[in-house]
């Protein structure tokens, strides 16, 4: 790849430029928003949807009254759990490359995914990709949606998941900032700073491959070279982070929502760690963010390193 993907729109272009579109399975498809997103993905040339679930009910939804499904594969399975299982079968058989959640709860879906224990399955974690507000590049925030209070070992897996995504987006080697409230390490008073310090030491031992992990960093140190300089932090990650690793789901989610709700920036949020990306849109996500989430999943599903 020639350098990092600089924007979400460029990522969309790269997906559209592929000769063969990937297929997305819309699991438990009797839910209008997911179906409309799948149809939009097809119209935009991102992915070809396969609808699995109560297809009869889906066709009867008033929001879909004008839609035509003749061009798409539809598998009728009125039971949600059986529909999810059939969707995962499609992914495992290679007949679809990623999944978008329809009318089922996220925890039900993730539990079923974890239950498959297929090869390549690691820790599931959430990543959000968004444009840097002042620079022509993308940033990744993790984990804003799956792991509530990850242990040190889980943070290693969360970082590894994000690093794999970053590499596919051309950030090579990815620079990971492990966030805390300050760059000072306090083993007794601030667990996030202790974990960040240990993760940085583990990086120096080489357990993250060529990714560079630094921390603890306050957010400003991670994303602003000026602030890093002002605070006297000299580290390859300071001010140049590609990945912002939050200490827990609360921090990750607040950062995610600050980007989307306060700054009104789009965010492509998906779940990674399975052998296929999972799109689990939040009710609060804008249409633009949902579109980019699908695009990101399509991009990752069709990219090999």
């Amino acid at each position: 790849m020639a350098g990092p993907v600089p924007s979400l729109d460029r990522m969309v272009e790269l997906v559209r430029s592929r000769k063969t579109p990937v297929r997305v399975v819309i699991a438990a498809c009797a839910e209008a928003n997911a179906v409309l997103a799948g149809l939009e993905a097809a119209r935009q040339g991102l992915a070809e949807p396969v609808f699995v679930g109560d297809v009869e009910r889906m066709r009867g939804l008033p929001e879909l009254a004008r839609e035509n499904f003749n061009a798409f594969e539809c598998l009728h399975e009125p039971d949600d759990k059986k529909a999810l299982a059939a969707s995962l079968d499609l992914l495992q058989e290679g007949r679809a490359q990623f999944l978008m959640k329809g009318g089922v709860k996220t925890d039900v879906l993730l539990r079923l995914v974890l239950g498959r224990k297929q090869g390549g399955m690691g820790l599931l974690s959430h990543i959000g990709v968004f444009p840097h507000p002042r620079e022509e590049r993308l940033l990744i925030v993790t984990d804003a949606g799956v792991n509530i209070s990850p242990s040190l070992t889980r943070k290693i897996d969360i970082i590894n998941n994000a690093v794999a995504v970053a590499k596919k987006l051309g950030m090579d080697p990815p620079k990971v900032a492990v966030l805390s409230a300050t760059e000072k390490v306090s083993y007794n008073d601030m667990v996030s700073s202790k974990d960040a310090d240990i993760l940085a030491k583990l990086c120096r031992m080489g357990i993250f491959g060529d990714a560079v992990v630094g921390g603890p960093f306050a957010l400003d140190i991670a994303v602003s070279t000026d602030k890093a300089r002002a605070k006297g932090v000299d580290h390859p990650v300071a001010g140049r982070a590609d990945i912002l690793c939050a200490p827990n789901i609360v921090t990750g989610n607040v950062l995610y929502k600050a980007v989307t709700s306060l700054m009104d920036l789009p965010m492509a949020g998906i779940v990674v760690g399975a052998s296929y990306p999972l799109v689990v849109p939040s009710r609060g996500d804008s249409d633009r963010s949902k579109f980019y989430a699908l695009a990101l999943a399509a991009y990752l599903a069709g990219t090999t390193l």
Partner: protein
Amino acid sequence: MRHTISTLVRNEPGVLAAMALVFQRHGINIRSISCGETEREDVSRMIICVEPDEGKITAVTDEIASLNFVLRLEDFSEQDLMDRELVMIKVRITRDTVSQILQIFEVFRANVIDMGNETISAELAAPQGKVAGLIRTLAPHGIQSLSRTGLIALSRGDA
């Protein structure tokens, strides 16, 4: 058989030495001993773990119970007790072993408290069996140093 003896003793000089003398006279090794003030400043709880030869324990507990500073004695061996021990353990690490050691800590829910260039340290507060399990599992990786508090315990329920 291992015995966990819980005593409430007066919080005054010489108690620990006098208690230790009883075990010395009976030729019993103390596996661990922990002592601290209770909800009353003038009373301490002393938890002593021993593994005496069969038949010796009754003589020892009788003698301890008769000491004038001992307010109460219970042999927890036959009771359902809540027990914990705190261990701090420093293990040698290499690039190849550190992930496995972290997973061991995770399995035992041990908390990493420090990391150097060649070692990583963790703490675990758990029942003695679990502490022993952690130590056994880490032993092949090379334990550089280890510190245990000895067992503390209370009886379950309202007793």
